[in-house]
């Protein structure tokens, strides 16, 4: 892998559920092309997919900014959605406010945020009610 930093930006569209996951699958492809270890790619893409889906189902879409350096992959998913009233509650496995419609599609297990935590080295949730949510996910590549 070269020393240069790769930066990627995606708009996460909430119009169409069926395209949800495009940003994370794009990042997965880029990391594969860069020759990153497949186990690390899996961790990054799972965590990013969960954050991306949350932006779609809970926040009406958002943005993904990804920075790939030789040391780490940093993913920031931000949205201007309703925000999370209590992040501590939201982080609990099984805690979900997903609508019935969303549940019918297989989401709403309340496992997305716990999965992000589990699959990354660092995770940060910043959220303000009525303003939006910003999730930062970091996986180190050389540990």
């Amino acid at each position: 892998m070269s020393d240069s930093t790769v930066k990627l930006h995606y708009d996460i569209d909430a119009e169409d559920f069926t395209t949800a996951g495009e940003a994370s699958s794009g990042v997965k492809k880029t990391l594969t092309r860069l020759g990153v270890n497949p186990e690390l790619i899996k961790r990054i893409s799972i965590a990013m997919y969960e954050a991306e889906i949350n932006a779609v189902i809970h926040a009406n879409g958002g943005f993904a900014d990804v920075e790939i350096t030789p040391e780490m992959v940093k993913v920031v998913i931000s949205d201007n959605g309703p925000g999370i009233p209590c992040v501590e509650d939201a982080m609990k496995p099984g805690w979900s406010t997903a609508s019935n419609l969303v549940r019918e599609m297989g989401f709403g297990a309340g496992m997305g945020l716990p999965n992000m935590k589990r699959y990354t080295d660092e995770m940060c949730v910043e959220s303000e009610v009525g303003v939006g949510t910003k999730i930062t996910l970091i996986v180190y590549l050389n540990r």
Partner: protein
Amino acid sequence: MTVKEVAEKLGFSILTGDGEREITGFYACDLLSWVISHAKNGDMWVTVMNNINILAVASLVDVACIVIPEGVEIYDNLAERANEKGITILATELSAADAVIKTHDLINGNI
């Protein structure tokens, strides 16, 4: 045993993909985030979910195939996208439990 061999022997229809992958385990669940964190690479994943989001999950986990049980309807757009992504989808009238049990028995030489 490959997905294709299992499908041929148990009468599952191969709706998409080539079925060349080896089945190395089993997973049955419909909650996608649960599947993402618990299913394993090479699993035969059984789910009644028939929306396009199952494809992202299947490729993240890198399952051997998706099996849609109970005769659940599969729409053209799901099949098209699965073919594009090279994901094998099987369909059967069996229940999720029976699909797993039968495949397990077949692979282990019990039928």
